[in-house]
């Protein structure tokens, strides 16, 4: 049943600009660094001799959590909007498909789209390093993959939460405002000292690539997202569709 729902959902996002958004996020991050290096190529090459790849990754890393938070807000919102705009929920849910499947299909599609985004980022980093004539032999493939995918797992709880909110609220302004606020605050919440900083899920994407016990934040993020997804499904199944 799941593949039927997913294939219908893939059809529905045609021509909605979702794929553009998926590509423009990572391309924007790469373009920023391309500009950085383009403006002061000689200086930066000189400064980072011997650790050029690492320096590039560190520069990109700062912007990964905020981009991810924007992505996990906007993608579920756009997906839900397709059903909200002409109240297609009543038509969709009167079809022989369980509500749980409908919810999980949207969740899976969000994951697939953002995974595509992460992949584009990884490819983009390699291409950028290549065109900046970094040493290909020194390329830290593992580091690049970690940077592109681990923060995504750590941001999944936010995605599950936003999908739940976006599906239930016809007015998307509320979840989007919340998402943008979280994305911006993620830049600053890292400065909170002590354990509180580690408890806040908004810091998990950053903690999953920087600092000790990275796997802890990836794992907890994944588990928490499953729990939220379960709660969201449970609520969606019982809800009256008006």
């Amino acid at each position: 049943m799941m593949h039927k729902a997913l294939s219908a959902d893939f059809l529905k996002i045609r021509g909605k600009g979702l794929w553009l958004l998926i590509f423009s996020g990572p391309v924007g991050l790469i373009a920023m660094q391309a500009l950085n290096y383009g403006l002061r190529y000689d200086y930066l090459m000189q400064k980072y001799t011997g650790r050029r790849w690492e320096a590039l990754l560190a520069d990109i890393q700062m912007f990964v959590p905020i981009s991810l938070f924007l992505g996990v807000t906007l993608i579920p919102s756009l997906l839900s909007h397709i059903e909200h705009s002409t109240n297609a929920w009543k038509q969709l849910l009167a079809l022989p498909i369980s509500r749980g499947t409908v919810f999980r299909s949207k969740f899976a599609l969000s994951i697939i789209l953002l995974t595509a985004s992460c992949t584009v980022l990884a490819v983009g980093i390699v291409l950028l390093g290549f065109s900046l004539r970094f040493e290909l032999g020194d390329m830290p493939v593992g580091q690049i993959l970690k940077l592109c995918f681990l923060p995504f797992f750590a941001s999944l709880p936010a995605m599950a939460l936003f999908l739940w909110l976006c599906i239930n609220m016809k007015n998307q302004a509320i979840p989007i405002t919340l998402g943008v606020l979280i994305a911006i605050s993620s830049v600053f919440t890292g400065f909170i000292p002590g354990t509180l900083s580690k408890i806040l899920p908004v810091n998990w994407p950053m903690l999953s690539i920087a600092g000790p016990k990275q796997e802890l934040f990836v794992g907890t993020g994944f588990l928490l997202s499953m729990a939220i997804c379960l709660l969201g499904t449970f609520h969606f199944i019982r809800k009256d569709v008006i």
Partner: protein
Amino acid sequence: MKEWIIETKGLSKRYKGRYAVSNLNLKIEKGDIYGFLGPNGAGKTTTIRMLLGLIKPSNGSVHIFGQPLNKDKLSILRRIGSLVEYPSYYGHLSATDNLEAIRRILGAPVARIAEVLDIVGLSKEARRPVKGFSLGMKQRLGIASALLGNPELLLLDEPTNGLDPSGILEIRELIKQMPKQHGITVLISSHLLSEVELTAGTVGIIRQGELVFQDTIAHLHQQAQGSMSLVVSEPEQALAILRSHGAQAAQSGSALLLENTGDHTIARIVKSLVEHNHAIYRVEEKRKSLEELFLQIVGEGKLS
């Protein structure tokens, strides 16, 4: 024993202490076209949503195809096509893609899309994005979606909303054919009696959430009993003769009105009047129109 396609028992929905639908006992026979009537806000859409499992009833039960809806929801929904209130569509997709999105979930054959587009007369517009469609075309697309899975039961909530007269006629003809050609049972809701009068076999009338009438349309016609009007030369004396025959008569100008009078009584009265040398100018039957009867039912909640 009749086979009930839809049977609800004590179906109720309460919103914040107020009953939108209360104690509804619908019975819809196989192969029938059931006209579900009521003024706006009477609870028609709420009922249809409960029949589709979109809303959970506060009380009561729904059985469709003899199966309980709360247990066998998906297998029941597989056999139902529905159009609830305003048409739902994905505006950025073409008519074909809209149907394809539904087809992928239903698992119907691809060729069925062209078939249903042809049935509702949208084949020529199939490739255009639906957001440019007129309301009537969107409504037809909604009906096409409802037919896509070859349903045995169609639930149509005000399907002729927004259609022009020729569109209404087309849809009416289309609905009429359903039971005959495909054995489909149809429930069609409307706030206009004239809308379903020509198609429905049975009507249910709902008022403030309660079912106040449920019977065949023929029975409704009988309820709309007429009165006889006699126009005579000397109404005062004629009235006395009528009363001597035991008829319930009243005078209005030169006309005498008789309520609920049988053929024999009329014959005796006319004969008697002629024998008393009254000139009879007219003997007319005045039927209360169904529309008047309907308004009376939804106005008072019962038949007089």
